[in-house]
């Protein structure tokens, strides 16, 4: 397989291959997807490591993400400054973690960060209410939302402090074998 691409140096491509779950072909395919989002912004030559960020609005309009209610949180978690604007590294990282081959612990860690809307390292009642509202598109009544969140806390909160820590979340994920197949974006 010849190295005919001129986008990355050989070392860069090897580094990407070693640090993500993608093969060389997939990395190139992902790069072209990234470049298609903003053709005038993203140069076709990354050998000099340009500092280019694609704004969140374009990321959120990708077909894989545009109907996902958590797309804003996903973009925020994986972006460098938490604002949703992603560099190529962030983009590759996001799809690598959401790919089929990422292990459960890694996915659980990022899922926790995604559901933690206020970034305080705990999923508190407010975070849960946000999640349920986004999941049901606001079609449950406020009382039902609160009831659901309380039951979630009852089931998953191990140390009864009223919020879920990372360990509680991971413990709950272990009981859900479907997590690996649902927390997966195919690209």
């Amino acid at each position, binding site marked *: 397989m010849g190295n005919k691409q001129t986008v990355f140096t050989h070392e860069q491509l090897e580094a990407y291959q070693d640090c993500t779950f993608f093969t060389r072909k997939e990395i190139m395919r992902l790069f072209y997807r990234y470049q298609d989002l903003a053709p005038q912004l993203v140069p076709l030559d990354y050998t000099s490591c340009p500092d280019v960020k694609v704004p969140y609005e374009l990321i959120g309009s990708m077909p894989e993400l545009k109907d996902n209610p958590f797309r804003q949180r996903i973009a925020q978690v994986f972006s460098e400054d938490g604002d949703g604007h992603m560099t190529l590294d962030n983009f590759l990282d996001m799809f690598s973690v959401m790919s089929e081959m990422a292990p459960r612990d*890694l996915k659980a860690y990022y899922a926790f960060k995604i559901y933690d809307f206020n970034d305080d390292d705990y999923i508190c009642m407010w975070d849960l209410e946000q999640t349920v509202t986004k999941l*049901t598109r606001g079609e449950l009544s406020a009382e039902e939302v609160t009831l659901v969140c309380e039951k*979630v806390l009852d089931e998953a909160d191990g140390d009864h402090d*009223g919020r879920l820590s990372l360990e509680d979340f991971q413990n709950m994920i*272990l009981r859900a074998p479907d997590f690996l197949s649902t927390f997966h974006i195919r690209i």
Partner: protein
Amino acid sequence: MAFVLDVSETPEDQGSPEPSPYDESAVHDSFHQLIREQSQRAAEEGLELQPLGPGAGTLGPSGSDHQALLGPEGAAVYSAATLRILASMPSRTIGRSHGAIISQYYNRTVQLRRRASRPPLSGLARSARPSLRLYDLELDSTALEEEEKRALLVKELRGLTPAQRDHMLRAMPLGLAEKRRLREETQTPRGKRRGRPRLPSCCSRLSYARVPASHHPGLGLLSGLRALAPWHYALKRIGGQFGSSVLSYFLFLKTLLAFNVLLLLPLLAFVVGVQAAFPPAPRGPAPAFTGLELLTGGGRFTDTVMYYGYYSNATLNQPCAGPLQGGQCTPEAAGLPYNMPLAYLFTVGAAFFITCITLVYSMSRSFGESYRVGSASGAHAITVFCSWDHKVTQRRASRLQHDNIRTQLKELLAEWRLQRGPRSVCGRLHRAVVLALVWLLCLGITLGCTVAVYAFSELMIQSPVSAQPEGALLGLPFVVGLLNLVAPYLYRGLAVLERQDSPVLEVYVAICRNLILKMVVLGILCYHWLGRRVGALNNQCWENFVGQELYRLVVTDFLFTLLDTLFGELVWRLISEKKLRRGKPEFDIAGNVLELIYGQTLTWLGVLFSPLLPAVQVIKLLLLFYIKKASLMANCQAPRRPWLASHMSTVFISLLCFPSFLGAAIFLCYAIWQVRPSSLCGPFRTLDTMYEAGKVWVRHLERAGPRVSWLPWVHRYLVENTFPVYLVSALMLAMIYLNIQVVKGQRKVIGLLKEQISNEGEDKIFLINKLHSVCEKKERSRAGRMQAAVTPPALDAEDWDPWQHSAGPGSPASAHRLGPAPTALQTHTPP
């Protein structure tokens, strides 16, 4: 067991720049800023769900059994001092700091290298939470800077093999740029790695599968095969439009394809290929090719590599030097002599053995993933966090998912609210009677089908084979196919009467009934072949006949599946949309998967008599994929009920292993050990049983000389003797029993640990409250003392800043406010 909560052991309190709780004038900037940012963000989002603090410092409104500190309106508020200490608790700094992640992975790498499961306890600082011992954090007296920790991690990573290092890097929850920097630093400073052999991309997938499966060498091959990903875009579209549940059917189809290829390769290499290279003398003129052969498998196809009868019973390629042993003597100098009967027996045996191992491995892995020790229900939590399928990409499918999740949550809430009370005795009796009746009817239908098949097969046996026209041979397969098509619809109709509560149970019951029908019909057919046909065809090639029957069954199964797709999906959609106005029909996942399992059983039954049957099955599966995909896209919608894709995949692969493969293996063993092969054709024509070929070879080896004498010894004492079988069975039973005991013990330990976590949580809350009250008392006494000295000036509400007490010490200084706007929140007045 005693533990000591030593909050003061943090280095911040040991001697340093960190302000003490008594020093109110120092500002803990970052925390204040954090709170302000977050409340601003909450206000920006416009989600006014709750006026009470969404911010980071408060514990949530707690339930009845919590002993949180409650203000007058029920919100938990703490003083600035308490919050400062809380912010520096190890549990709050773990996830956030970069250094902590690096330390954690440093420890993991060390463990990986030293292959120890836990770090030695003596070397670690005591801490409040035992799990923190795994984190080499600031609790350690030698507080390491982030750069030093990073250098340690790099050093440890250098000590790993490249594959392990890559595996470690990929699993780290750091950003990609950070990982690349770590990788660069860990590259051995021997210059650029020029000489490192780079795997082509297809093989690097195998290496991903290999590294985590490094404890099971060679068995990672199956996951590697799966990762080769043919049909990637097709599966992506299906997953995007219909979700994981329907996708599980297509993934199962792909798995079956892999199994068939695995079965086909040894047969092609060792049996079919060799015989095709050394064709036996033709028996007579080959009949002309008519199109009917494709359906019946007879005619032109009879005397070809496709069936058992073609294979020679002698040693191929035998040099003419030695005395002729009934083999074909090739005068020219040839290669190795090839004992065809032995090769046939061993290849079929080995192929089945490999399939068995792979199947059991897949099943155990799938089982391990879906069932966990001590997993309680947790239905709400799982629905909220794990039910959104991120693969779904179409707007309509996405909306359907929203609706499904909403319905599911409503149902869960309704179930919890109603707490369905015990039915009256009359109701229960009525329900039991209905259930029993429906089951009796279903079993009656099964019995009816079985009797029909038996009667028809007896009818077919009355007239001899040669007198019948070719087309009449299709009678039995057609009858079987028709019954397999119609009976499931009858079952579905009867199941409507049952009205099960749980949709998952409904699916299991339907699968059970269909499976019973199919297995019983196959059982009758096996009896018909091995019991009756062998006798009826005693001077003809009965194995060829059985092979052709199985070929016919495979082909008619394919035709009836097409018919089912046509009527069940296309026509039903037209009727459903135009006449009933109910929208598209749902894709029947369970029924289709059972069809696949049935087809695979037929293939396994037929391998001994028709070595090319797996090839036919491969072609059939390929065609089925495209046809089912087209029909799905055009005619169906995703199932509305929650599907539990992972549990169902486990169930499917267990069904593939237990009734299906086990039944085929029993059939094969019976055919090899007990049935007399026909004397006119095939590789075993002069023997009493097929197994005798092996015995003949062992006797030949005994005579051959002392160098291979261990093999007959092994055969006599380990294979023919029954004692080793008993020993192995006893060992396996003992292992199973021990495993059950271990699982029971683990369950107990999990229960104890859960209790311990809960207790520690309560302890933590208690101590925080105590800390708060101690701080309060100190401030009050200090405020009291200072008030006695100075009269307080008037306090202006706008100027009052809770963090800087320049306005005066007499203020209720322990109040804590969130955010710049004081209107939304309450202040806490000390009791």
